[in-house]
């Protein structure tokens, strides 16, 4: 038992180690850093898939860092929600690394990119496995700081500006989170999340917990880019290099934002009716605002970034329902969105790679001489627009069914309306970039390199067959445990505490 649980810290140790080694010897030659990056990403990806199997065999696992017993020492936890998020993060990270081999050739000092990248991955994995709220914050900051640097990686004017905005807003969000943690620490005298949940459950709801809730809503809401805390995202996501855009939109806003909201509000503080209503309202607001703004965009990556806000809204709406079906639907949409949004961002990168522009008005007819890119675009677009049989359809279906089941008919109409907007915005991309007659300036364009194609092909296959995760029997392995963890609410802490002691 204890032997197996020692894989938990590997999820941060391996990427951290990878980042360290790459920065040491990666500068010698490009192929060394490529090889090391691939190896590191592959190992954590396999480990995360393995953790699904381990969780299904052994149940909740815990690990005490340095052998110190919590609540004094630092605890790490592997439960249903953790394995789910680990798979999402590391799967996407692996595909992104494959893509970067070719794509990042245009930048100097690729090894710096890989170092920052794995620092970010280590931060995200740390947030996910941490059972201790202060360590949770530390990892969150590691991932955030690495992402500020990665947004500015191109060091052009607009990239620096975007990174500056992102850094200022992100820091303010972190500040609110830290303040909330400090207040909770003062109130409960513990930093271990399971212990904290126990203590909070014994006390009544006071104004202090409500105040902390607001701070967390603001802080994590900012990390997740929920309207009205989304101002940084439409600048930061398009400015970063395409693989980083894919990581930011695909997994960063989910692991730092949505996962944190799930963990803190469901398992530590405990979801209450007002919080649930606020989450639903903010979700619906994000859906509409993000959807409309995306529809009006002509910059391909900015369109995708606004669409991320809209899709995050769907996830928050579904999770905010706090019904079993709602949580399942929200988590499933989280998984699907991380896959197809990464796919779309990577594809926007290849469009930029072959045409040299992100402006939809300057493109046209790409389906004639870039059939692969065009097909990938169609798959990603149809999936996010919820057209069967792609995976996005299934999560959209579940979200709508869950919302109707909860009796929230008004939100169901919003969800339908925004799904029509989503279809419209992606058909706009297809219309202006891929169909029609070929522009004269695009007659002779570069070919998409093989590793970029490979990475997109993997993601495309996952989004094609993603609906299978819902098949009875398969859902028991992956989706249900994650949803059950959230549904247990604050009672979940007892299992962890007995494990840790």
């Amino acid at each position, binding site marked *: 038992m204890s032997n197996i649980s020692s894989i938990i810290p590997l999820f941060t140790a391996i990427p951290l180690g990878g980042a360290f080694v790459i920065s040491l010897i990666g500068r010698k030659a490009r192929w060394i850093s490529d090889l090391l990056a691939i190896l590191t990403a592959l190992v954590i990806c396999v480990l995360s898939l393995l953790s699904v199997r381990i969780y299904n065999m052994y149940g909740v696992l815990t690990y005490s860092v340095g052998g110190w017993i919590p609540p004094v020492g630092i605890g790490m936890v592997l439960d249903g929600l953790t394995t789910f998020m680990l798979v999402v993060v590391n799967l996407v990270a692996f595909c992104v690394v494959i893509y970067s081999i070719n794509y990042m050739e245009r930048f100097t000092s690729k090894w710096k990119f890989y170092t920052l990248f794995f620092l970010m991955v280590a931060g995200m994995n740390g947030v996910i496995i941490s059972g201790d709220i202060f360590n949770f914050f530390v990892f969150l900051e590691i991932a955030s700081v690495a992402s500020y640097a990665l947004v500015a990686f191109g060091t052009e004017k607009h990239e620096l500006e975007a990174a500056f905005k992102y850094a200022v*807003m992100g820091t303010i969000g972190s500040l609110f989170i830290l303040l909330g943690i400090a207040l909770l620490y003062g109130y409960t005298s513990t930093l271990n999340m399971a212990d904290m949940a126990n203590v909070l459950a014994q006390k009544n709801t006071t104004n202090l917990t409500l105040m902390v809730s607001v701070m967390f809503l603001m802080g994590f809401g900012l990390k997740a880019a929920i309207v009205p*805390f989304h101002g940084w995202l439409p600048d930061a996501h398009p400015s970063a290099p395409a693989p980083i855009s894919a990581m930011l939109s695909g997994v960063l806003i989910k692991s730092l934002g949505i996962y944190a909201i799930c963990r803190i509000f469901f398992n530590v503080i405990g979801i209450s009716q007002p919080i649930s209503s606020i989450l639903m309202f903010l979700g619906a607001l994000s859906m509409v605002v993000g959807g409309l703004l995306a529809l*009006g965009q002509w910059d391909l990556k900015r369109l995708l970034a606004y669409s991320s806000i809209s899709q995050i809204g769907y996830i928050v709406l579904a999770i905010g329902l706090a019904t079993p079906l709602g949580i399942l639907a929200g988590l499933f949409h989280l998984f699907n969105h991380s896959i197809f949004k990464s796919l779309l961002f990577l594809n926007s990168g290849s469009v930029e790679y072959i045409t040299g522009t992100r402006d939809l008005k300057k493109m046209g007819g790409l389906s004639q001489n870039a059939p692969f890119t065009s097909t990938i675009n169609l798959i990603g677009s149809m999936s996010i627009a919820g057209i069967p049989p792609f995976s996005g359809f299934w999560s959209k279906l579940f979200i*709508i069914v869950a919302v*109707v089941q909860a009796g929230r008919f008004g939100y169901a109409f919003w969800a339908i309306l925004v799904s029509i907007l989503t279809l419209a915005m992606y058909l706009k991309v297809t*219309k202006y970039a891929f169909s029609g007659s070929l522009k004269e300036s695009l007659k002779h364009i570069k070919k998409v390199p093989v590793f970029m194609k490979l990475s997109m092909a993997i993601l495309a296959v996952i989004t094609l067959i993603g609906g299978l995760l819902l098949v009875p029997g398969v859902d028991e392995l992956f989706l249900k445990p994650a949803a059950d963890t959230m549904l247990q609410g604050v009672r979940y802490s007892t299992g962890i505490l007995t494990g840790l002691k």
Partner: protein
Amino acid sequence: MLNLSTYFFKIDQLSIFVGIFIVFFSILTIIYSFGFMRRQKGLFSYYLYVVLTLVASLGAVFSNNLILFIVFWGFLGLLLYLLIGYGKKETTNSTAKKAFIIIGGTDAIMLLGIAFVWHITGLLQMDKMSIPLSTRPATLAYLCLAAGAFAKAGAMPFHTWVPDTAEDAPTPVVAFLPASLDKLLGIYFLARISLDIFQLNPSMNIFLMAIGSFTIMAAVMMALVQHDLKRLLGYHAVSQVGYMVLGIGTANPIGIAGGLFHMLNNTIYKSCLFFGAGAVEKETGTTDLGRLGGLAKIMPITFVTFLLASLAISGVPPFNGFASKWLIYQGIIETAKAGGHLWVIWLIAAMFGSALTLASFMKLVHAVFLGQPSRNIKVNEERIVGSSMFAPMITLASLCVIFGVFAYQIPLKVFIFPSIRIWPRLSGVWNAGAATILILAGIVIGSIIYLFSTAVKTRRTESFVGGEDVKSHPDMRVSGTEFYNTIQEIGLLRVIYKLAKKKVFDLYDVGEKISSGFIKVLRYIHNGVLPTYLGWCLLGTIILFWILLR
């Protein structure tokens, strides 16, 4: 396993009937495409999409599970989008996008309907449901599902993709999807929800009949003033859906049988008309009515099949269009027994619509096939319209006659009445065989009188042209395009036509305008300035504090 298969699939008379014709029209389309799409790029994927459409349509028709149904149904929208993309015009992109947004959008609305159905009954199996429309969620569920059926079939207010698609998509695709398969599927699903899944109440029936009547009249009025061959046919494709909705809305066996029979007949003659239009397009390179004319001598087979189908769609006896319209009229009169006087309106709309259809096709046949040929088109001398294009046209034209003359012996007896499981007692007297003989006798007697009188009285002279040389003015001819332009000048109609030209009645354009208004406002407040964004964060936090801690 047996249990699982009935959970997902069900085969009954209605689905078999629709399924047979789905296969039939797919085969005809593929044969026609061999001729029409020859020497084009990307043919492999074209035929792949056609076959996938066939499979998905059959899947949708035989599904017994609402989720499985919507999977097939939604996938068809994507295939439609891809198939329209094979068009060659500049506006094809916009049309494909518009069609897919309307179809995909209503599919999303259907998802909501399915969620409501599941919320009410806890079931997804179609044959186990019978929901009375007594509660608000039930009514909403019915309307959501009906919206999908309307959009697919092209009934108002979701019709606007049909005329655009008819104009811009390749002709075999138009004949395949909007004209035949989408009609079959849309009306099939409307019949399924109206007859099996829900128990309609009288007010919903009146709503359906009102939609049907309005669709008939509005679309045929639009068709009258069109000057593109395929677009004109597209408006008729919308108008004819009105009859089917009207028939199903009557809620009595005769009317429903009429609606389903009209669905079948419409797919036959409408595909035939589009196939004919495709042949004209292939031969002359244009579908602009002003530039066509006098093709009857050059394309006799196309002319005859087109004429037969035109007579059928106009409801001229003894063709099939008349037989089904006759049933629908009877169905409407039958509703009078329930009281109320609204049936008079429905009957007038149906009959007047039929008359206007005839008027519109007189214009069309004249403009394309009769009159003098226009000089500024080149007829392709190679006669590239081959037998693979003629065969489907001839098959369908002969079906128009057979299903009309032997309406009771073949289609109604074999397909329609078994699928609604009722053998209605017909109130009127209609003997197709006797009527045909009477009509033929009338034609013979009429021509004898005509020949006799012309032989005696007519005097032929040169026509007076006022000294002009006619040959130097090639366009001094009556093309037929302008036949009904004067109706655009009459009183209230003038206003309506003007608004229609501005696309005020097009849900797609209205939606586009509304959303672009909101986008302008949102873009104005997203000015990219950091303090603004921080201000929102602050404002949001304050509001959250106020809500939770007040």
